């Protein structure tokens, strides 16, 4: 009798565990099967890997030497895409530069429901990373980043829009001797969270943010060097203080 009860308890426990696993697996399957793709379009776009502004009378080293990952979060349903890379950009004298990779973006229009609440969703994601790379000197005036270009067309392909102009001052820097400000990012942490981007896939426009994550190790992220004797307004872009844009005062 005692053994029988023990067996019964064990069998019930095993049953409960199996039931739990099946339910978890099943809920994922139900979620996936409760979505219907209605339409999609593809377009190849120059996709931002890294951007760096330099102050007039100064220079910037943006170094992401090891593995870094750009995460693009787009649209009201926050669809995510990532690309991984290692880059260094070293603009100077008020120039701004950026590096891009040609990526195939897909816009999808989904009907979701009824099990997950019936509604329509626009989703944007990268479906393929192509082997075309582009390092561009961003056009604009040298003394400030107010008019820096935020999109372009090159080699027949449009770029994403990337909003990284100087808008307003977060701080003022005046130096009497050469001064360097260094911004680092720890392993598995993100920076430039909140840098806004717009993706236009054949007229289907999604807006969102890009952030860059340190995937492996810790290294210098941005170094801003200011030469004497000048002064600048600094706009810290995004929601962290890594990516700076400048307006030279004197």
């Amino acid at each position, binding site marked *: 009798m005692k053994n029988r009860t023990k067996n019964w308890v064990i069998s019930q426990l095993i049953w409960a565990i199996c039931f739990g696993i099946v339910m978890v697996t099943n809920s994922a399957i139900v979620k996936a099967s409760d979505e219907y793709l209605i339409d999609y379009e593809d377009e190849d776009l120059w996709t931002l890997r890294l951007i760096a502004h330099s102050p007039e009378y100064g220079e910037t080293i943006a170094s992401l030497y090891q593995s870094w990952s750009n995460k693009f979060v787009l649209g009201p349903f926050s669809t995510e895409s990532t690309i991984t*890379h290692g*880059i*260094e950009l070293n*603009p100077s004298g008020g120039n701004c530069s950026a590096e891009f990779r040609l990526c195939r973006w897909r816009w999808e229009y989904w009907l979701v429901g009824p099990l997950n609440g019936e509604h329509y969703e626009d989703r944007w994601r990268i479906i393929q990373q192509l082997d075309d*790379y*582009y390092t561009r000197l961003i056009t604009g005036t040298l003394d400030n980043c107010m008019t820096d270009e935020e999109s372009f067309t090159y080699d027949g392909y449009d770029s994403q829009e990337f909003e990284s102009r100087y808008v307003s001052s977060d701080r003022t820097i005046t130096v009497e001797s050469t001064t360097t400000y260094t911004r680092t990012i720890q392993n598995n942490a993100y920076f430039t969270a909140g840098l806004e981007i717009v993706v236009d896939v054949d007229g289907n426009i999604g807006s969102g943010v890009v952030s860059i994550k340190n995937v492996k190790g810790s290294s210098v992220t941005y170094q801003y060097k200011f030469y004497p004797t000048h002064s600048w307004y600094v706009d810290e872009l995004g929601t962290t203080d890594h990516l700076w844009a400048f307006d030279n005062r004197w």
Partner: protein
Amino acid sequence: MVIKMKLDRVFKIYVVWLAIVSISFLVVPVFAQTMTSDKIFTPKQAENHILVETTEKEWHRSDINTIELELGPNFYVSDYGIAMNLRYEFNASYPRTTVCIYKIYSNGEYVDRIKHTLENLQKFKGFSTYGAVIIPSETLKEGANTITVEMTFDSIASKTPSRVDMVSLKVVDMSIKEMPRDTDGDGLKDAFDLLKSRNNIYVTLILSFIAFPPISATRIIKKEN
């Protein structure tokens, strides 16, 4: 009494069954996979350095590098990814646009190319990683294989240089890494996966479930009655 004894045996057999299933489909493959590291092949030449100091408005340069792959009989369960990086420096009198093209051949057969445009750079330093280009295992054979990278660099300035322009292009850290396939996407690479096209986790769950004791026990009790 007979039923109880049979039930005890059923549970014991079930535990053994669970152990066999999970060891065969999960434990052994995961262990074997973690004990084996992916192969990495490096080129004959550590780096390709193109250094151009000239007053010419336009120039063209080319270079080549090769990687030898010695592959065993099981290479077909993997693809291979070739990766390289570019370290570049410009000190030019006028903005200069340079196009770098790397054509990749596997045993003489064209595989793919990487293109990188460096536009309007005058005084500039930079470094770029390129994502690994896949060399399909179909283009490879057992034994010795040769992967060739043909590089061409074309540069043009916006105006004829007023002094000697310097452009340094250094292709570094070229390597080929084994990229084992995982056809069913269950995290177990094909080389270690008994069920290459079936998710081992689901299979283990299903096999555990179909031998579940209450199912067998119900049959025994029914039979005894």
